[in-house]
């Protein structure tokens, strides 16, 4: 297989009048755990289904391992999909479900028995071979769905919201399981999810999608530290976003909501500061970029979440160490920001196209 497992080129798709995908570009490397992350309706599932061959694009191409498969039907593609609800065959046993793809591809009987046993062992479901899917729990069914898709050793495993139907505790366990499976089998995984913590925990790289477009592609850290658009800055993690305007009094500074930010180039950029980088100081502190009143203080365990309100009534989130904080509600305080942790988000993130932008 070539280094590029999947290449998606200027892919567009609309259902009726609704544009679901708008000129999508993606490159997934072989052996990578890649996630498509975005709110519901952003087109991520459609993109996945087009890669699987279950949906036809209006424009654009899909290349798998360098070969153009845009017109290839799903049963002739080297991909397998794990469906959101599992889509197990209810009339077949677990064994027959997992063996289905091997039988369709005319694998020998002994080989089928061996490989089904092997993959059931990998997902920890060996004792369930003779059971009907309806007798399994949600998590067990999802494991079988994954085993069924993996047993044929696809070049690429596609996963459509594989964990969204599971309860939270199980989701957390299955995340690690997915990552382990991906490493163990060396298969390229492309996973669609709307759950950012899931995507950030398991993925090598993430493509953030919004409204049918790819906003940014990068590692979880790149997306968190250097968002290239307003959407990514607001969608990944929590953020304080400020639409600033130049400060007439002092060059190199921009103002918003009663706060003055040191912005190298000046002008009116979108400024983003994570709650953990906002410090609550004495009003008279030299480093303060403005004043605020403490509206509420919430104990979150390791951290304390402080909600501040600036002179313009704007809410600002600040997180501090739970063990050293002495803030009281109603107090007038100063807001301080370490310039190193102040992010200037490019004005039009959409203009920044896909890879290279972040990495």
């Amino acid at each position: 297989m070539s280094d590029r497992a999947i290449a998606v080129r200027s892919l567009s798709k609309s259902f009726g009048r609704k544009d679901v995908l708008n000129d999508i570009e993606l490159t997934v490397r072989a052996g990578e755990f890649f996630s498509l992350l975005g709110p519901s309706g952003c087109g991520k599932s459609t993109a996945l289904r087009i890669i699987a061959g279950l949906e036809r694009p209006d424009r654009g191409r899909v290349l798998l391992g360098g070969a153009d498969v845009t017109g290839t039907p799903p049963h002739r593609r080297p991909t397998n999909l794990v469906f959101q609800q599992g889509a197990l065959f209810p009339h077949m046993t677990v064994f027959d479900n997992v063996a289905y793809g091997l039988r369709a591809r005319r694998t020998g009987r002994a080989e089928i028995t061996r490989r089904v046993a092997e993959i059931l062992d990998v997902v920890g479901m060996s004792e369930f071979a003779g059971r009907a899917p309806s007798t399994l729990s949600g998590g067990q069914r999802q494991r079988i769905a994954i085993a069924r898709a993996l047993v044929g050793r696809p070049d690429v495993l596609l996963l459509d919201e594989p964990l969204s139907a599971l309860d939270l505790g199980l989701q957390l366990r299955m995340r690690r399981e997915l990552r382990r499976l991906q490493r163990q089998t060396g298969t390229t995984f492309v996973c669609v999810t709307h759950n950012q913590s899931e995507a950030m925990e398991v993925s090598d790289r993430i493509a953030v999608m919004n409204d049918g477009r790819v906003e940014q592609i990068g590692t979880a850290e790149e997306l968190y530290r250097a968002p290239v658009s307003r959407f990514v800055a607001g969608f990944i993690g929590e953020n304080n976003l400020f639409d600033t305007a130049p400060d007439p009094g002092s060059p190199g500074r921009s103002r918003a909501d009663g706060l003055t930010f040191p912005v190298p180039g000046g002008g009116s950029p979108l400024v983003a500061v994570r709650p953990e980088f906002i410090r609550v100081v004495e009003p008279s502190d030299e480093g303060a970029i403005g004043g605020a009143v403490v509206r509420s203080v919430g104990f979150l365990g390791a951290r304390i979440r402080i909600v501040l309100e600036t002179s313009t009534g704007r809410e600002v989130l600040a997180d501090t160490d739970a063990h050293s904080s002495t803030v009281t509600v109603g107090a007038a305080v100063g807001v301080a920001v370490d310039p190193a942790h102040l992010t200037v988000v490019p004005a039009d993130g959409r203009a920044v196209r896909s890879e290279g932008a972040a990495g």
Partner: protein
Amino acid sequence: MTRETPAPALTKEGRGRTRERRVAYALVAPGAAYLVLIFLSIVLLLVSYSFRTEQTSRLIAPFDTGTWAEALSNPYNLAVLWTTLRVGALVTLLTVVLAYPIAWCLLRVRRWWVAGLLMFVIFSPILVSVVVRSYGWMLLLGHGGLLGGVLRGWLYHEPGVILALVHVELPFAVFPLLASLRNLPPGVLEAAADLGAPPLRRLRTVLLPLTASGIVASAQLVFALTVSAFATPSLLGGGRVTVLAQSVYQNIQQLRWPLAAAQALLLLAIALAVLALFNRLSRYADVRHRSPEGGDSR
């Protein structure tokens, strides 16, 4: 106080439920009594007729099995029986095979008005009297008719009867198929395709097994309606194709009540036997569907 409230609430609910059930039984009772009593009394009457003899148009009392011997051994009667079964089987097979893709397409149509139009076209035969429809087929198949040239010799022969019966029964076959196709679990066909199964394999291994109950229900309905069909085989058979229902009618006209009764019972027996057979089949399909659900069957 607060602790006591659930108990009376529960009893009230329970009482409400039994009351509901009683009302339901009361509502069902007249219809059920009508069906069961009339059906049973007719069957008993027919049984008693079939064991009596008839002399100069009057039934006489002594018990006699001669009628049954005639119904089951006379070559003509056997031929009628065989024709009934053959036509029934062929019509059932053709109708269900034709109805399946129709039901499939009906569920796939997205535009509501196209779906509505299709529904109307498919179910319109029901709106027209069987006699009118049969005459229509006679005109189509007859000399100088639209299909008379292509399907020469079908009218007044078995193929013509089968053709018209398939047309008559088609809507009845579509109903149960629609229901079972609608219940197809989402994603299973796409999953089969994704796992490498080409279309025919998907049909054989996923679609047909998962809709088996609908296929069986559809076949049962069509078979039961076909073997008891009277007007269509009479008109399109032109006297050359005789099925049991016609034979019963003829025997009544000739005042051979015992034979008519025996043949009527035979018709009922065939219908029941085939229903039972299909039920067996559908349970078989269900076992494949559910057998491991009963626990660790291995």
